[in-house]
Protein backbone atom coordinates (compact mmCIF):
# COMPACT_ATOMS: atom_id res chain seq x y z
CA UNK A 1 0.00 0.00 0.00
CA UNK A 2 1.28 3.42 -0.94
CA UNK A 3 2.44 5.71 1.87
CA UNK A 4 2.59 9.45 1.35
CA UNK A 5 4.57 11.63 3.73
CA UNK A 6 4.72 15.42 3.96
CA UNK A 7 7.85 16.90 5.56
CA UNK A 8 7.61 20.47 6.79
CA UNK A 9 10.61 22.70 6.27
CA UNK A 10 11.49 26.06 7.74
CA UNK A 11 13.94 28.54 6.33
CA UNK A 12 15.76 30.22 9.22
CA UNK A 13 18.54 32.77 9.71
CA UNK A 14 21.88 31.09 10.44
CA UNK A 15 22.43 30.97 14.17
CA UNK A 16 25.92 32.35 13.70
CA UNK A 17 24.67 35.32 11.64
CA UNK A 18 23.69 38.67 13.08
CA UNK A 19 20.05 37.84 13.79
CA UNK A 20 17.77 40.82 14.22
CA UNK A 21 14.30 42.31 14.02
CA UNK A 22 12.97 45.13 11.85
CA UNK A 23 9.45 46.48 12.35
CA UNK A 24 8.59 43.64 14.68
CA UNK A 25 9.52 40.90 12.24
CA UNK A 26 12.57 38.70 11.99
CA UNK A 27 14.87 39.84 9.19
CA UNK A 28 15.40 36.95 6.80
CA UNK A 29 18.33 37.82 4.59
CA UNK A 30 18.63 35.28 1.76
CA UNK A 31 22.42 35.27 2.00
CA UNK A 32 22.32 34.36 5.68
CA UNK A 33 19.61 31.75 5.84
CA UNK A 34 19.38 28.04 5.35
CA UNK A 35 17.23 25.00 6.01
CA UNK A 36 16.53 24.77 9.74
CA UNK A 37 19.10 22.18 10.76
CA UNK A 38 16.59 20.20 12.80
CA UNK A 39 14.41 19.74 9.71
CA UNK A 40 17.16 17.58 8.22
CA UNK A 41 16.33 15.05 10.94
CA UNK A 42 12.70 15.22 9.79
CA UNK A 43 13.67 14.61 6.15
CA UNK A 44 15.89 11.72 7.21
CA UNK A 45 13.12 10.20 9.34
CA UNK A 46 10.65 10.41 6.44
CA UNK A 47 13.09 8.83 3.99
CA UNK A 48 13.91 6.01 6.42
CA UNK A 49 10.21 5.27 7.00
CA UNK A 50 9.64 5.03 3.25
CA UNK A 51 12.77 2.96 2.66
CA UNK A 52 11.71 0.43 5.30
CA UNK A 53 8.31 -0.11 3.67
CA UNK A 54 7.54 -2.95 1.26
CA UNK A 55 7.25 -1.83 -2.35
CA UNK A 56 3.68 -0.91 -3.30
CA UNK A 57 1.78 -3.60 -5.20
CA UNK A 58 1.75 -3.48 -8.97
CA UNK A 59 -0.49 -0.75 -10.29
CA UNK A 60 -0.22 1.27 -7.08
CA UNK A 61 1.63 4.58 -6.91
CA UNK A 62 5.15 4.60 -5.45
CA UNK A 63 5.69 5.88 -1.90
CA UNK A 64 6.22 9.62 -1.85
CA UNK A 65 7.93 12.23 0.34
CA UNK A 66 6.82 15.81 -0.31
CA UNK A 67 8.51 18.83 1.29
CA UNK A 68 6.33 21.84 2.14
CA UNK A 69 7.44 25.25 3.39
CA UNK A 70 5.49 28.43 4.05
CA UNK A 71 7.95 31.20 3.32
CA UNK A 72 9.16 33.85 0.88
CA UNK A 73 11.13 32.94 -2.24
CA UNK A 74 14.46 32.92 -0.39
CA UNK A 75 13.36 29.64 1.18
CA UNK A 76 14.00 27.80 -2.09
CA UNK A 77 17.47 27.14 -0.71
CA UNK A 78 15.84 25.08 2.05
CA UNK A 79 13.70 23.10 -0.41
CA UNK A 80 16.76 22.42 -2.59
CA UNK A 81 18.60 21.12 0.43
CA UNK A 82 15.75 18.66 0.99
CA UNK A 83 15.99 17.66 -2.70
CA UNK A 84 19.71 17.00 -2.20
CA UNK A 85 18.96 14.65 0.67
CA UNK A 86 16.40 12.74 -1.40
CA UNK A 87 12.96 14.37 -1.21
CA UNK A 88 11.00 13.85 -4.44
CA UNK A 89 8.73 16.90 -4.60
CA UNK A 90 8.85 20.37 -3.06
CA UNK A 91 6.17 23.00 -2.54
CA UNK A 92 6.65 26.56 -1.34
CA UNK A 93 3.55 28.39 -0.13
CA UNK A 94 4.24 32.07 -0.68
CA UNK A 95 1.89 34.99 -0.32
CA UNK A 96 2.25 38.52 0.98
CA UNK A 97 -0.96 37.83 2.94
CA UNK A 98 0.94 35.24 4.99
CA UNK A 99 3.70 37.59 6.13
CA UNK A 100 3.65 38.22 9.85
CA UNK A 101 1.65 35.08 10.64
CA UNK A 102 1.65 33.94 14.27
CA UNK A 103 1.66 30.24 15.23
CA UNK A 104 -2.00 29.92 14.33
CA UNK A 105 -1.71 31.60 10.94
CA UNK A 106 1.30 29.46 10.05
CA UNK A 107 -0.56 26.36 11.17
CA UNK A 108 -3.61 27.30 9.09
CA UNK A 109 -1.44 27.63 5.98
CA UNK A 110 0.37 24.35 6.60
CA UNK A 111 -2.88 22.51 7.30
CA UNK A 112 -4.41 23.91 4.12
CA UNK A 113 -1.41 22.70 2.11
CA UNK A 114 -1.68 19.21 3.63
CA UNK A 115 -5.42 19.10 2.89
CA UNK A 116 -4.80 20.29 -0.64
CA UNK A 117 -2.24 17.55 -1.21
CA UNK A 118 -4.73 15.09 0.28
CA UNK A 119 -7.30 15.96 -2.37
CA UNK A 120 -5.16 14.24 -4.99
CA UNK A 121 -4.17 11.29 -2.83
CA UNK A 122 -4.41 10.77 0.92
CA UNK A 123 -1.54 12.07 3.05
CA UNK A 124 -0.60 9.48 5.68
CA UNK A 125 1.93 11.30 7.78
CA UNK A 126 3.35 14.75 8.43
CA UNK A 127 6.92 14.82 9.75
CA UNK A 128 8.59 17.87 11.31
CA UNK A 129 11.76 18.72 13.20
CA UNK A 130 11.57 19.24 16.95
CA UNK A 131 11.89 23.02 16.77
CA UNK A 132 12.89 25.86 14.51
CA UNK A 133 16.21 27.26 15.57
CA UNK A 134 14.99 30.85 15.31
CA UNK A 135 11.80 30.71 17.34
CA UNK A 136 12.24 27.54 19.40
CA UNK A 137 8.53 27.39 20.21
CA UNK A 138 8.10 23.72 19.23
CA UNK A 139 4.33 24.08 19.12
CA UNK A 140 3.47 23.99 15.40
CA UNK A 141 3.42 20.15 15.21
CA UNK A 142 0.88 19.99 18.06
CA UNK A 143 -1.20 22.81 16.56
CA UNK A 144 -1.16 21.15 13.15
CA UNK A 145 -2.33 17.84 14.63
CA UNK A 146 -5.15 19.72 16.38
CA UNK A 147 -6.10 21.55 13.17
CA UNK A 148 -6.11 18.36 11.07
CA UNK A 149 -7.79 16.31 13.82
CA UNK A 150 -4.96 13.80 13.69
CA UNK A 151 -3.05 12.22 16.60
CA UNK A 152 0.31 13.77 17.42
CA UNK A 153 3.51 11.94 18.29
CA UNK A 154 6.07 14.63 19.06
CA UNK A 155 9.74 14.73 20.06
CA UNK A 156 10.44 11.18 18.95
CA UNK A 157 13.90 9.76 19.53
CA UNK A 158 13.02 6.58 17.63
CA UNK A 159 10.28 5.79 15.14
CA UNK A 160 8.78 2.64 13.64
CA UNK A 161 5.82 2.11 11.32
CA UNK A 162 4.04 -1.22 11.19
CA UNK A 163 0.60 -2.01 9.75
CA UNK A 164 -0.22 1.69 9.63
CA UNK A 165 0.51 2.12 13.33
CA UNK A 166 3.28 4.55 14.19
CA UNK A 167 5.20 3.85 17.39
CA UNK A 168 7.73 6.23 18.92
CA UNK A 169 9.87 6.53 21.99
CA UNK A 170 10.40 9.97 23.46
CA UNK A 171 12.33 11.52 26.30
CA UNK A 172 10.61 14.75 27.10
CA UNK A 173 10.73 16.78 30.28
CA UNK A 174 10.35 14.31 33.14
CA UNK A 175 9.64 10.93 31.55
CA UNK A 176 10.74 8.34 29.04
CA UNK A 177 7.82 6.83 27.19
CA UNK A 178 6.61 4.79 24.25
CA UNK A 179 3.55 6.06 22.40
CA UNK A 180 1.59 4.64 19.47
CA UNK A 181 -1.05 6.04 17.11
CA UNK A 182 -2.76 5.02 13.88
CA UNK A 183 -2.09 6.90 10.62
CA UNK A 184 -2.72 9.56 9.55
CA UNK A 185 -0.66 11.30 12.21
CA UNK A 186 1.74 14.18 12.89
CA UNK A 187 5.25 13.19 13.94
CA UNK A 188 8.12 15.35 15.16
CA UNK A 189 11.62 13.96 15.63
CA UNK A 190 14.51 15.23 17.77
CA UNK A 191 18.10 15.67 16.71
CA UNK A 192 19.01 12.37 18.35
CA UNK A 193 16.44 10.38 16.32
CA UNK A 194 18.89 9.88 13.45
CA UNK A 195 21.96 11.26 11.69
CA UNK A 196 20.91 12.96 8.47
CA UNK A 197 22.63 11.47 5.42
CA UNK A 198 25.03 13.54 3.32
CA UNK A 199 23.66 14.66 -0.04
CA UNK A 200 24.91 12.50 -2.88
CA UNK A 201 26.45 14.03 -5.99
CA UNK A 202 23.73 12.96 -8.42
CA UNK A 203 21.03 14.43 -6.21
CA UNK A 204 23.02 17.65 -5.69
CA UNK A 205 23.25 18.14 -9.45
CA UNK A 206 19.57 17.27 -9.97
CA UNK A 207 18.46 19.56 -7.12
CA UNK A 208 19.83 22.64 -8.90
CA UNK A 209 17.26 22.53 -11.65
CA UNK A 210 14.46 20.51 -10.07
CA UNK A 211 11.32 22.65 -10.10
CA UNK A 212 9.71 23.91 -6.90
CA UNK A 213 5.95 24.31 -7.02
CA UNK A 214 4.66 27.64 -5.72
CA UNK A 215 1.20 27.88 -4.16
CA UNK A 216 -0.57 31.05 -3.05
CA UNK A 217 -3.05 31.73 -0.25
CA UNK A 218 -5.78 31.78 -2.87
CA UNK A 219 -4.71 28.35 -4.17
CA UNK A 220 -5.27 27.06 -0.65
CA UNK A 221 -8.53 28.99 -0.21
CA UNK A 222 -7.10 30.68 2.88
CA UNK A 223 -9.07 33.59 4.26
CA UNK A 224 -6.64 36.55 4.27
CA UNK A 225 -8.26 37.79 7.51
CA UNK A 226 -7.30 34.57 9.27
CA UNK A 227 -3.59 34.55 8.40
CA UNK A 228 -0.62 36.92 8.31
CA UNK A 229 -0.55 40.12 10.30
CA UNK A 230 -4.30 40.54 9.82
CA UNK A 231 -5.07 37.28 11.60
CA UNK A 232 -2.33 37.42 14.23
CA UNK A 233 -3.55 37.39 17.81
CA UNK A 234 -0.26 38.75 19.10
CA UNK A 235 1.57 41.84 17.89
CA UNK A 236 5.25 42.51 18.38
CA UNK A 237 5.36 46.11 19.58
CA UNK A 238 9.01 46.36 20.51
CA UNK A 239 12.23 44.51 19.74
CA UNK A 240 15.65 45.61 20.90
CA UNK A 241 19.05 44.08 21.45
CA UNK A 242 19.71 43.48 25.12
CA UNK A 243 22.49 45.53 26.65
CA UNK A 244 25.89 43.90 26.20
CA UNK A 245 27.46 42.23 29.18
CA UNK A 246 29.97 44.17 31.25
CA UNK A 247 33.69 43.77 30.86
CA UNK A 248 34.94 40.20 31.24
CA UNK A 249 37.00 39.60 34.37
CA UNK A 250 39.61 37.10 33.21
CA UNK A 251 41.86 35.23 35.62
CA UNK A 252 44.69 33.02 34.43
CA UNK A 253 45.05 30.20 36.93
CA UNK A 254 48.40 30.20 38.66
CA UNK A 255 47.17 28.20 41.61
CA UNK A 256 44.53 30.68 42.84
CA UNK A 257 41.95 30.43 40.02
CA UNK A 258 39.41 28.45 42.03
CA UNK A 259 39.62 30.81 44.99
CA UNK A 260 39.18 33.77 42.65
CA UNK A 261 36.08 32.15 41.16
CA UNK A 262 34.61 31.58 44.61
CA UNK A 263 35.43 35.18 45.62
CA UNK A 264 33.67 36.49 42.50
CA UNK A 265 30.50 34.62 43.44
CA UNK A 266 30.72 35.61 47.12
CA UNK A 267 31.40 39.33 46.58
CA UNK A 268 28.55 39.54 44.07
CA UNK A 269 26.19 37.91 46.56
CA UNK A 270 25.55 34.96 44.27
CA UNK A 271 26.19 32.15 46.75
Amino acid at each position, binding site marked *: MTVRIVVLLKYVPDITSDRRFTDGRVVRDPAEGSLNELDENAVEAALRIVEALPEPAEGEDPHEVVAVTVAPEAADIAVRKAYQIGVGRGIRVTDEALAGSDYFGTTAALAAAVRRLGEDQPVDLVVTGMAALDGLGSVVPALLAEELGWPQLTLATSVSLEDRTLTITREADDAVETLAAPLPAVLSVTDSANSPRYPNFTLIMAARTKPIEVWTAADLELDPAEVGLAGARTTTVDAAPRPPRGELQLVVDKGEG*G*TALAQFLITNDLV
Partner: protein
Amino acid sequence: MTRPTVLVFLDSPDPEAEEVRPAVLELITLGRTLGRVDVLTLGAPSVAVLATLGAYGVENVHQAAVSTNVPAKAHHLTSVLAAVLAEGVRRIDADVLLVPSSFAGREAAAVAAARLGAGFVADASGLAWTDGAAPLRISKRVFAGTWETVSTVASDPAVVTVRANTVVAEPAETVARPDVWPLPVEVGAAAVTVVSRELKHRAAGRPAQEEAAIVVAGGRGTHGDFGPVEDLADALGAAVGATRDAAFEGWFDSYIGQTGVTVAPRVYIGAGVSGAPHHRGGMQASQVIVAVNNDPEAPIFEISDFAVVGDLADVLPQAAAAIRAHKAARQG
Protein backbone atom coordinates in the same frame (compact mmCIF):
# COMPACT_ATOMS: atom_id res chain seq x y z
CA MET B 1 -10.76 47.29 34.52
CA THR B 2 -12.36 44.97 37.05
CA ARG B 3 -9.81 42.86 38.83
CA PRO B 4 -8.51 40.37 36.26
CA THR B 5 -8.44 36.65 36.93
CA VAL B 6 -5.24 34.71 36.36
CA LEU B 7 -5.27 30.92 36.17
CA VAL B 8 -1.95 29.20 36.94
CA PHE B 9 -1.47 25.58 35.95
CA LEU B 10 0.19 23.51 38.67
CA ASP B 11 1.97 20.94 36.54
CA SER B 12 3.60 18.01 38.21
CA PRO B 13 5.05 14.82 36.82
CA ASP B 14 4.06 13.16 40.08
CA PRO B 15 0.41 13.52 41.18
CA GLU B 16 1.43 12.48 44.72
CA ALA B 17 3.93 15.34 44.99
CA GLU B 18 4.11 16.97 48.41
CA GLU B 19 5.77 20.13 47.16
CA VAL B 20 4.86 22.80 44.67
CA ARG B 21 7.62 23.22 42.09
CA PRO B 22 9.50 26.54 42.34
CA ALA B 23 8.47 27.39 38.74
CA VAL B 24 4.79 27.27 39.74
CA LEU B 25 5.38 29.47 42.81
CA GLU B 26 7.12 31.98 40.54
CA LEU B 27 4.06 31.97 38.24
CA ILE B 28 1.72 32.57 41.18
CA THR B 29 3.96 35.43 42.35
CA LEU B 30 3.93 36.90 38.84
CA GLY B 31 0.18 36.29 38.52
CA ARG B 32 -0.53 38.29 41.70
CA THR B 33 0.90 41.37 39.99
CA LEU B 34 -1.78 40.96 37.31
CA GLY B 35 -4.88 40.06 39.32
CA ARG B 36 -6.50 37.35 41.42
CA VAL B 37 -4.74 34.01 41.06
CA ASP B 38 -6.60 30.68 40.90
CA VAL B 39 -4.74 27.41 40.50
CA LEU B 40 -5.62 24.48 38.24
CA THR B 41 -4.42 20.97 39.13
CA LEU B 42 -4.68 17.46 37.85
CA GLY B 43 -5.08 15.08 40.77
CA ALA B 44 -5.90 15.90 44.37
CA PRO B 45 -3.60 18.46 46.01
CA SER B 46 -2.11 17.26 49.30
CA VAL B 47 -2.52 19.13 52.57
CA ALA B 48 1.07 20.37 52.25
CA VAL B 49 0.48 21.61 48.69
CA LEU B 50 -2.71 23.45 49.76
CA ALA B 51 -0.84 25.07 52.67
CA THR B 52 1.85 26.33 50.28
CA LEU B 53 -0.73 27.64 47.81
CA GLY B 54 -2.51 29.38 50.69
CA ALA B 55 0.73 31.04 51.78
CA TYR B 56 1.01 32.35 48.22
CA GLY B 57 -2.45 33.88 48.48
CA VAL B 58 -4.38 31.37 46.35
CA GLU B 59 -8.05 31.18 47.37
CA ASN B 60 -9.36 28.76 44.77
CA VAL B 61 -7.92 25.51 43.49
CA HIS B 62 -9.69 23.82 40.58
CA GLN B 63 -9.06 20.09 40.53
CA ALA B 64 -9.63 18.63 37.08
CA ALA B 65 -11.48 15.31 36.89
CA VAL B 66 -10.82 13.93 33.43
CA SER B 67 -13.57 11.73 32.00
CA THR B 68 -13.01 8.04 32.72
CA ASN B 69 -12.67 7.08 29.05
CA VAL B 70 -9.10 8.40 29.30
CA PRO B 71 -6.75 6.23 31.40
CA ALA B 72 -4.75 8.06 34.07
CA LYS B 73 -1.48 7.25 32.33
CA ALA B 74 -2.69 9.27 29.32
CA HIS B 75 -3.56 12.42 31.32
CA HIS B 76 -0.27 14.09 30.39
CA LEU B 77 -0.90 13.82 26.63
CA THR B 78 -1.16 17.17 24.91
CA SER B 79 -4.73 16.67 23.70
CA VAL B 80 -5.89 15.83 27.25
CA LEU B 81 -3.92 18.59 29.01
CA ALA B 82 -5.17 21.09 26.45
CA ALA B 83 -8.76 20.11 27.25
CA VAL B 84 -8.06 20.58 30.98
CA LEU B 85 -6.50 24.01 30.44
CA ALA B 86 -9.27 25.21 28.12
CA GLU B 87 -12.00 24.00 30.49
CA GLY B 88 -10.27 25.70 33.44
CA VAL B 89 -10.16 29.01 31.59
CA ARG B 90 -13.82 28.73 30.59
CA ARG B 91 -14.97 27.75 34.08
CA ILE B 92 -13.59 30.83 35.82
CA ASP B 93 -13.62 33.09 32.75
CA ALA B 94 -9.88 33.68 33.25
CA ASP B 95 -8.24 36.66 31.57
CA VAL B 96 -4.76 35.12 31.62
CA LEU B 97 -3.61 31.51 31.66
CA LEU B 98 -0.03 30.94 32.85
CA VAL B 99 1.72 27.61 32.30
CA PRO B 100 5.34 26.78 33.21
CA SER B 101 7.48 26.48 30.08
CA SER B 102 8.40 22.94 29.14
CA PHE B 103 7.89 20.98 25.93
CA ALA B 104 4.64 19.52 27.28
CA GLY B 105 3.51 22.82 28.79
CA ARG B 106 4.07 24.74 25.56
CA GLU B 107 2.23 22.18 23.42
CA ALA B 108 -0.77 21.95 25.74
CA ALA B 109 -0.97 25.73 26.21
CA ALA B 110 -0.77 26.34 22.45
CA VAL B 111 -3.51 23.82 21.66
CA ALA B 112 -5.67 25.23 24.48
CA ALA B 113 -5.16 28.71 22.98
CA ALA B 114 -6.23 27.36 19.57
CA ARG B 115 -9.42 25.95 21.09
CA LEU B 116 -10.14 29.17 23.00
CA GLY B 117 -9.34 31.45 20.05
CA ALA B 118 -6.75 33.07 22.30
CA GLY B 119 -3.40 34.68 21.59
CA PHE B 120 -0.41 32.64 22.71
CA VAL B 121 3.15 33.54 23.67
CA ALA B 122 5.75 30.89 24.52
CA ASP B 123 8.64 31.26 26.96
CA ALA B 124 7.82 34.70 28.31
CA SER B 125 10.26 36.43 30.64
CA GLY B 126 7.86 39.08 31.92
CA LEU B 127 4.20 40.16 31.86
CA ALA B 128 2.42 43.40 32.73
CA TRP B 129 -0.78 45.22 31.88
CA THR B 130 -0.48 48.37 29.78
CA ASP B 131 -0.97 51.18 32.32
CA GLY B 132 -3.15 48.91 34.42
CA ALA B 133 -5.40 47.81 31.57
CA ALA B 134 -5.53 45.52 28.54
CA PRO B 135 -3.70 44.69 26.37
CA LEU B 136 -1.27 42.47 28.20
CA ARG B 137 2.37 43.21 27.38
CA ILE B 138 4.60 40.17 27.31
CA SER B 139 8.38 40.31 27.09
CA LYS B 140 10.48 37.50 25.80
CA ARG B 141 14.15 36.88 25.16
CA VAL B 142 15.02 35.56 21.73
CA PHE B 143 18.06 34.70 19.62
CA ALA B 144 19.84 33.03 22.52
CA GLY B 145 19.01 35.86 24.89
CA THR B 146 20.61 38.57 22.76
CA TRP B 147 17.34 40.32 21.92
CA GLU B 148 14.25 41.16 23.91
CA THR B 149 10.86 41.50 22.26
CA VAL B 150 7.62 42.84 23.66
CA SER B 151 4.32 41.56 22.30
CA THR B 152 0.79 42.57 23.07
CA VAL B 153 -2.05 40.09 23.15
CA ALA B 154 -5.34 41.61 22.15
CA SER B 155 -7.42 38.55 22.94
CA ASP B 156 -9.11 37.74 26.22
CA PRO B 157 -7.95 35.31 27.46
CA ALA B 158 -4.22 35.45 26.79
CA VAL B 159 -2.32 32.17 27.09
CA VAL B 160 1.34 32.39 28.08
CA THR B 161 4.05 29.92 29.03
CA VAL B 162 6.64 31.45 31.33
CA ARG B 163 10.28 30.54 31.81
CA ALA B 164 11.63 29.55 35.19
CA ASN B 165 13.62 32.20 37.12
CA THR B 166 11.55 35.02 35.63
CA VAL B 167 10.74 36.37 39.10
CA VAL B 168 11.72 35.45 42.63
CA ALA B 169 8.91 33.48 44.27
CA GLU B 170 7.47 35.31 47.27
CA PRO B 171 4.58 34.35 49.56
CA ALA B 172 1.62 36.73 49.70
CA GLU B 173 1.24 39.33 52.44
CA THR B 174 -2.05 37.73 53.45
CA VAL B 175 -2.32 33.98 53.83
CA ALA B 176 -5.41 32.43 52.22
CA ARG B 177 -7.22 29.20 52.93
CA PRO B 178 -7.79 27.65 49.52
CA ASP B 179 -11.07 26.01 48.60
CA VAL B 180 -10.84 23.03 46.24
CA TRP B 181 -13.44 22.92 43.45
CA PRO B 182 -14.02 19.91 41.22
CA LEU B 183 -13.63 20.65 37.49
CA PRO B 184 -15.14 17.91 35.33
CA VAL B 185 -13.37 17.73 31.93
CA GLU B 186 -14.92 15.75 29.08
CA VAL B 187 -12.26 14.50 26.70
CA GLY B 188 -12.77 12.49 23.54
CA ALA B 189 -11.04 9.11 23.51
CA ALA B 190 -7.33 9.73 22.97
CA ALA B 191 -6.07 8.60 19.56
CA VAL B 192 -2.61 8.12 21.07
CA THR B 193 -1.91 5.03 23.16
CA VAL B 194 0.62 5.24 26.00
CA VAL B 195 2.42 1.93 25.63
CA SER B 196 4.81 2.58 28.51
CA ARG B 197 5.91 5.51 30.65
CA GLU B 198 8.70 5.83 33.17
CA LEU B 199 9.50 8.92 35.22
CA LYS B 200 13.12 9.98 35.07
CA HIS B 201 14.93 9.89 38.36
CA ARG B 202 16.60 13.08 39.37
CA ALA B 203 19.86 12.92 41.31
CA ALA B 204 18.83 13.08 44.96
CA GLY B 205 19.28 16.47 46.56
CA ARG B 206 19.97 18.38 43.34
CA PRO B 207 17.49 20.85 41.88
CA ALA B 208 16.15 20.53 38.32
CA GLN B 209 18.34 22.28 35.75
CA GLU B 210 15.57 24.41 34.26
CA GLU B 211 14.56 25.74 37.69
CA ALA B 212 17.85 25.96 39.56
CA ALA B 213 19.25 29.35 40.63
CA ILE B 214 22.75 28.08 39.81
CA VAL B 215 23.72 25.58 37.11
CA VAL B 216 27.17 24.02 36.70
CA ALA B 217 27.66 22.45 33.26
CA GLY B 218 30.41 20.20 31.96
CA GLY B 219 31.57 19.97 28.38
CA ARG B 220 34.08 18.11 26.28
CA GLY B 221 36.90 19.54 28.44
CA THR B 222 35.83 17.31 31.33
CA HIS B 223 37.08 14.33 29.28
CA GLY B 224 34.24 12.36 30.80
CA ASP B 225 35.01 13.05 34.44
CA PHE B 226 32.06 14.95 35.87
CA GLY B 227 33.37 14.55 39.44
CA PRO B 228 34.70 18.14 39.76
CA VAL B 229 31.52 19.52 38.11
CA GLU B 230 29.27 17.66 40.54
CA ASP B 231 31.47 18.62 43.48
CA LEU B 232 31.19 22.35 42.74
CA ALA B 233 27.47 22.01 42.04
CA ASP B 234 26.90 20.34 45.40
CA ALA B 235 28.95 22.98 47.22
CA LEU B 236 26.71 25.64 45.65
CA GLY B 237 23.43 23.71 45.90
CA ALA B 238 23.34 23.91 42.12
CA ALA B 239 22.00 21.71 39.32
CA VAL B 240 24.38 19.79 37.06
CA GLY B 241 24.15 20.01 33.28
CA ALA B 242 26.14 19.14 30.18
CA THR B 243 26.74 20.12 26.57
CA ARG B 244 25.31 18.09 23.71
CA ASP B 245 28.77 16.76 22.88
CA ALA B 246 29.25 15.53 26.44
CA ALA B 247 25.80 13.91 26.46
CA PHE B 248 26.36 12.23 23.09
CA GLU B 249 29.64 10.83 24.52
CA GLY B 250 27.51 9.22 27.21
CA TRP B 251 29.00 11.28 30.04
CA PHE B 252 25.67 12.75 31.14
CA ASP B 253 22.03 11.89 30.47
CA SER B 254 20.71 15.24 29.24
CA TYR B 255 22.07 18.39 27.68
CA ILE B 256 21.63 22.15 27.75
CA GLY B 257 21.17 23.74 24.36
CA GLN B 258 18.84 24.78 21.62
CA THR B 259 17.41 21.30 21.27
CA GLY B 260 17.76 20.28 24.89
CA VAL B 261 17.13 21.93 28.23
CA THR B 262 16.95 25.72 28.27
CA VAL B 263 18.34 27.30 31.41
CA ALA B 264 18.36 30.94 32.51
CA PRO B 265 19.65 30.77 36.08
CA ARG B 266 21.10 33.58 38.21
CA VAL B 267 24.52 31.97 37.72
CA TYR B 268 25.67 29.61 35.00
CA ILE B 269 29.12 28.05 35.36
CA GLY B 270 30.53 26.27 32.30
CA ALA B 271 33.49 23.96 32.87
CA GLY B 272 35.36 22.67 29.85
CA VAL B 273 32.58 24.16 27.74
CA SER B 274 33.75 25.81 24.51
CA GLY B 275 30.54 27.77 23.91
CA ALA B 276 29.28 26.30 20.63
CA PRO B 277 26.18 28.00 19.17
CA HIS B 278 23.99 25.02 20.10
CA HIS B 279 24.91 25.28 23.78
CA ARG B 280 24.74 29.07 23.86
CA GLY B 281 21.19 28.88 22.58
CA GLY B 282 20.23 27.08 25.77
CA MET B 283 22.09 29.18 28.36
CA GLN B 284 22.95 32.60 27.00
CA ALA B 285 20.01 34.22 28.79
CA SER B 286 21.62 33.37 32.15
CA GLN B 287 22.07 36.43 34.38
CA VAL B 288 25.73 35.84 35.25
CA ILE B 289 27.97 33.59 33.17
CA VAL B 290 31.17 32.09 34.54
CA ALA B 291 33.54 29.93 32.48
CA VAL B 292 36.51 27.72 33.27
CA ASN B 293 38.49 26.57 30.26
CA ASN B 294 42.12 25.82 29.55
CA ASP B 295 41.79 27.35 26.07
CA PRO B 296 42.21 31.15 26.36
CA GLU B 297 40.45 31.48 22.98
CA ALA B 298 37.30 29.59 24.03
CA PRO B 299 34.28 31.36 22.46
CA ILE B 300 32.35 31.09 25.73
CA PHE B 301 34.62 33.81 27.15
CA GLU B 302 32.97 36.26 24.73
CA ILE B 303 29.70 35.96 26.64
CA SER B 304 31.13 35.49 30.13
CA ASP B 305 31.22 37.89 33.06
CA PHE B 306 34.00 36.03 34.83
CA ALA B 307 36.38 33.42 33.47
CA VAL B 308 39.34 31.37 34.59
CA VAL B 309 41.87 30.12 32.08
CA GLY B 310 43.00 26.92 33.71
CA ASP B 311 42.49 23.24 34.25
CA LEU B 312 39.02 22.56 35.58
CA ALA B 313 40.33 19.60 37.61
CA ASP B 314 42.33 22.13 39.67
CA VAL B 315 40.03 25.14 39.59
CA LEU B 316 36.68 23.52 40.41
CA PRO B 317 37.71 21.63 43.58
CA GLN B 318 39.48 24.73 44.89
CA ALA B 319 36.39 26.84 44.23
CA ALA B 320 34.16 24.20 45.86
CA ALA B 321 36.35 24.16 48.99
CA ALA B 322 36.29 27.97 49.22
CA ILE B 323 32.49 28.04 48.83
CA ARG B 324 32.07 25.39 51.53
CA ALA B 325 34.41 27.30 53.86
CA HIS B 326 32.43 30.50 53.21
CA LYS B 327 29.09 28.80 53.91
CA ALA B 328 30.43 27.15 57.08
CA ALA B 329 31.77 30.50 58.34
CA ARG B 330 28.44 32.18 57.56
CA GLN B 331 26.52 29.58 59.51
CA GLY B 332 29.01 29.47 62.36
